[in-house]
């Protein structure tokens, strides 16, 4: 992973992996994102918070090429991403998970992970059919990589589960498998969309530790959308708050969580009114 070419683009002074510059996106008259500036540094964990509909997942969709921004610029390791199709952006080193799990449900657990190596392997179909050396070597490497990644999740995705279909996994394990699958694309930046959604407190704690381990042991930068404040406070270097597609606060967790604009976005204009009404 360290063999990645250096960030060639020059760009801003801080070595940022991802850089959104005055990014705007409109759906018809609806302004989903406006003038959003955001950057993620090398091996940095940035959390994005905000109420439902604030535009957090939209940011992911713009970065990964699902939506094309109306204006503004997305740069990854110095290179512009605008107009690139999703699979090429993924191959450049941005991997994501989905809020509403999108596993390959009818494929086995290990195949889910192996499928994500497609862009980083080269063997042509006839090489695979004839089992020529390159196909054999790649298949061996891909399997080893998948096993290595799945082992990263310890007992949760232990060996006996590898050949079971993905639909047989529990909800929490499906979330883990999504992360495993994203890792198999050899990303430099990982976009996690609510990794702790639907998990119990113990599993949430585990996910928090996992996110930190991903950065420490795999060297990826992470941009994570999360509603659970334990996760946000537990792992982030920096927190960004969005509301109505606008960045309303940025900084350390305590700083952002106490920011009046953030409190207002979550609670309404006058938090006192809530307690009065009760």
């Amino acid at each position, binding site marked *: 992973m360290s063999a990645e070419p250096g960030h060639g683009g020059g760009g801003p002074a801080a070595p940022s992996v991802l850089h959104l510059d005055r990014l705007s996106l409109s759906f018809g008259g609806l302004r989903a994102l406006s003038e959003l500036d955001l950057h993620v540094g090398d091996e940095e964990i940035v959390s994005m918070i905000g109420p439902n509909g604030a535009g957090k997942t939209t940011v992911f969709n713009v970065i*990964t090429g*699902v939506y094309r921004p109306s204006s503004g610029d997305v740069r990854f390791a110095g290179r512009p991403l605008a107009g690139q*199709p*999703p*699979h*090429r952006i*993924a*191959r450049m080193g941005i*991997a*994501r998970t*989905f809020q*509403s799990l*999108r*596993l*390959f*449900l*009818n*494929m086995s657990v290990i*195949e889910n992970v*192996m*499928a*994500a*190596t*497609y*862009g*980083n*392997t080269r*063997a042509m*179909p006839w090489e*695979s*059919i004839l*089992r020529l050396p390159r*196909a054999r070597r*790649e*298949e061996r490497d*891909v399997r080893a990589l998948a096993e290595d990644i799945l082992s990263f999740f310890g007992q949760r995705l232990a060996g*006996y*589960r590898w*050949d*079971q*279909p993905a*639909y*047989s*996994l*529990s909800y929490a*394990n499906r979330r883990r498998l999504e992360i495993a*699958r*994203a890792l*198999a*694309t050899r990303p430099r930046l990982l976009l996690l969309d609510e990794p702790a959604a639907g998990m119990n407190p113990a599993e949430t704690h585990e996910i928090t530790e996992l996110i930190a381990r991903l950065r420490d042991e795999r060297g990826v930068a992470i941009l994570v959308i999360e509603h659970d404040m334990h996760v946000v406070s537990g792992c982030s270097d920096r927190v960004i708050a969005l509301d109505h597609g606008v960045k309303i606060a940025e900084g350390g967790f305590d700083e952002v969580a106490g920011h009046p604009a953030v409190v207002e976005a979550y609670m309404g204009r006058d938090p006192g009114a809530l307690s009065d009404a009760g």
Partner: protein
Amino acid sequence: MSLDSQPPAAGPQVGADEWVARQAQRREYLPSWLGTGQRWLERVGWWPRLLVVGLAAAALPLLGLGGFQLQVAIDALVIAMLAVGLNIVVGWAGLLDLGYVAFFGFGAYGFALLSSSQIGPNGIHLPTYLSVPIVMVGAAILGLLVGWPSRRLIGDYLAIVTLFFGEAFVEFTNNVAPSVLGGPNGIVGIDPISIFGRQITTNGGYYYLLVAVLVLTMGVLRLLDTSRTGRAWRAVREDPLAAASMTIPVNRVKLMAFAFGAVVAALTGTIFAAQQISVFPTDFDTPILILVYAGLILGGAGSIAGAAAGALVVMVIYDGLLRSPTDSGYLFYGLILLTLVVKLRPWRRLAVVLAATVALGFATHAIAGAISARAVAGGPQSTGWLAAALRDWVIVPADAKVLGNWGYVLLVCLLIALVQVSSRWRTILLPPTICLASFVWETRLAVEPAITRQLMIGAILIVMMNARPQGLLGSRRVEAIT
């Protein structure tokens, strides 16, 4: 794969995941001893299995197949090849391609043009080792061309667009350049296929050729299925957006599926053309498409062995058994008996229904015969012991056609009622329904095999959908809820 016979609750360490997986696995297998056989088969590797099945198929003519049976076997193998190829597009890549038979036609017409006196004063008579590869490459290019505009179409839209393509092929061969393509008269006098300098001219030879090519194709596709390409196809089927986000170029992967499917179809077409010695536009019309799809769905889309097995079953029933009244009689009464034995529980209920059915048949026959001799003047359509057994049981009147038609309408009403009523009424209604069904069978259905076999395939698919939606050899699938 720990498959102990313990109930899942017995092990204290069984978690929710493990339990769900075991349940799913249990449902994958056929019931009772069939499932045991299935598990035993799975322990053997895939290629010894394929080889054994191939050798068994090769040994089949030694039992002394007649000319008709051999022709049925060849037709069945052709459809099996097509189903195996269609499985790439439909079963793996999840693209509903209704124009698939056009590639089959392209292969057949391509081979016919390259190996007959159709073009030029002396014709082109390319040797097989040139013509077949040329046709296959051409089919791959055609597959890419058809896939190119339709690669962004999904689901229903793709189905309709490809259906137009399939129909366009039939119209094209019917109307364009009749001096070359022959119009409705097709192309005749096609050279046989020759392998290692030996021409294959007999049906027996083409049977062996088809078995060999089918086994080879299945092996190749199996190797492809477990490669990065196969995984990409299935990932695109499961979730195109997720696949794209995981570095898979969705459009290119879809095009590859189109091309591979087209190549298999075209290869089949070349053998078909050589075996028939002639090609006509009607050989590549919608009925073939329906048969291929019926085979693929019956066998289990997504499974290579399933596609082949399903197509063979469909064709042997459709083309073989349902052509002769006696064979179709065996099939009809056999299926009724089998369904009753499998579905009716407890045994007491089964015995009552069977006894009542037999008694009711003889009783009505006796009464009808006492009233008028004309009412039982006709005999059953089948011959041999089946006819002897049925002679005094099923009523076949002299003017079978009119009464049979009314009986058919009544039968449909009874069947609908049978599905709606409670279990006790169903038991009571079953014997008269079976008697009426036999009456309709002997008076109308067995007389009109061309219509009956269509109905029969439909009925088999309906039963299959309820009993085993994943098909004979397919594996259970869940639909993603998004």
